[in-house]
């Protein structure tokens, strides 16, 4: 089997200012499937074509932003090994017991030098995608409710020390660098796109003075037409749209950025290409950052650099 180690982004926990307003937004406008609520009041969602119990969890809080972002790893042995590797690298890890999140096994938690809390876990209950495992239909009614992305695809996080973050992902967690934007002097990176798979990014980081900031969580759509349909649904529901529909130069992904009711940006995204770990990274110079963000308009939208939660 080729895909081992860290498999994919598995869950994000995001803070919201008004829980029920946010539930309505995520369930009925974004079209996620609500899968549970826990004793703490957290609400759990998954995308229709995901099989594990949850991928996106919201919690009422007095500030917006990201609590943590978790990756699913192959198995318990992988989890134990990566825990030991992180500690050997010099990062403190914390074990969160199984069951602290609904239907989720033990989690290894650590904090990046960018201020973001990351998690690894091996087990989350498979509840299926609502379709049969024998002779399945290609899709069911859940795909038709709201925007209805197929999966949580990646996140872009803003914080300091991106070079150190890159080392942890590439030297400890088995990710590879897919694309980067150079600093104006060309000596470092202002932004990096990292993959643990065949995807153009599983997580991305941009240099920012304040630690632990969320730029966006991204949800995968199946086609450009579905991205445009997402834009229609956003407008019908007065969702504030930031950028798009357009295409990123970086990753070649087709995109809309918009905000949830608490000001957490999210993305509906499709496309890109399929990199392999032996590909060298693609590089954007700082003066071409605008094309990297919005290729047709060649525009470095100010909100991309300044608006985070």
């Amino acid at each position, binding site marked *: 089997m080729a895909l081992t180690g860290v498999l994919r982004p598995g869950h994000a926990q995001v803070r919201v*200012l*008004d829980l029920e307003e946010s539930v309505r937004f995520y369930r009925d406008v974004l079209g996620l499937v609500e899968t549970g609520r826990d004793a703490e009041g957290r609400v759990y969602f998954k995308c229709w074509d995901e099989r594990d119990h949850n991928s996106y969890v919201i919690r009422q809080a*007095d*500030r*917006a*932003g990201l609590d943590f972002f978790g990756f699913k790893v192959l198995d318990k042995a992988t989890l134990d090994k990566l825990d030991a590797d992180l500690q050997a690298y010099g990062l403190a890890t914390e074990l969160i017991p199984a069951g602290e999140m609904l239907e989720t096994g033990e989690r290894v938690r650590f904090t990046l030098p960018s201020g973001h809390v990351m998690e690894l876990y091996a087990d989350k209950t498979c509840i299926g995608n609502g379709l049969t495992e024998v002779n399945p239909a290609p899709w069911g009614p859940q795909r038709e409710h709201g925007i209805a992305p197929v999966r949580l695809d990646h996140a872009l996080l803003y914080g300091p020390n991106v070079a150190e973050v890159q080392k942890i992902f590439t030297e400890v967690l088995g990710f590879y660098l897919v694309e980067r934007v150079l600093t104006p002097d060309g000596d470092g990176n202002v932004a990096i796109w990292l993959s643990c798979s065949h995807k153009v990014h599983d997580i991305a980081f941009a240099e920012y003075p304040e630690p632990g900031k969320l730029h966006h969580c991204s949800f995968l759509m199946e086609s450009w037409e579905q991205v445009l349909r997402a834009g229609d649904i956003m407008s019908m529901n007065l969702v*504030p749209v930031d950028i798009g529909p357009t295409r990123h130069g970086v990753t070649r992904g087709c995109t809309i950025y918009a*905000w*949830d*009711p*608490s*000001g*957490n*940006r999210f993305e509906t995204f499709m496309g890109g290409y399929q990199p392999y770990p032996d590909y060298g990274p693609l590089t954007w110079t700082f003066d071409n950052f605008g094309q990297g963000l919005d290729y047709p308009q060649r525009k470095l939208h*100010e*909100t991309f650099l*300044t*608006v*985070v*939660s």
Partner: protein
Amino acid sequence: MTHTVRIEDTGVSYACAPRESLLEGLNRLGLRGIPTGCHGGGCGVCKIEVLAGEFQTRAMSRDHVSDDDVAHHRLLACRVYPASDLSLKVIGKLQRKVCNPASVR
């Protein structure tokens, strides 16, 4: 019925309905380059200080609004709704754009 909101920094006034946030009204002025931000009380770019007038608010992120800010009516425009005529001062990241629109792109 709408209320009149006066931006003390510039002397510009605009109409804002009670069901419309101060930021939505401000955006309708069409000042070039105003970073509209998240419209959800989460990012903090739209911070203002209400100098006079009645208003209502919705939840806004405490990352950007402290107790002291609340006490002094330093709030996020996207979460403040006018209940009378208002006067305000723009603070935070928005100020440069509102007060100096010609300087923008």
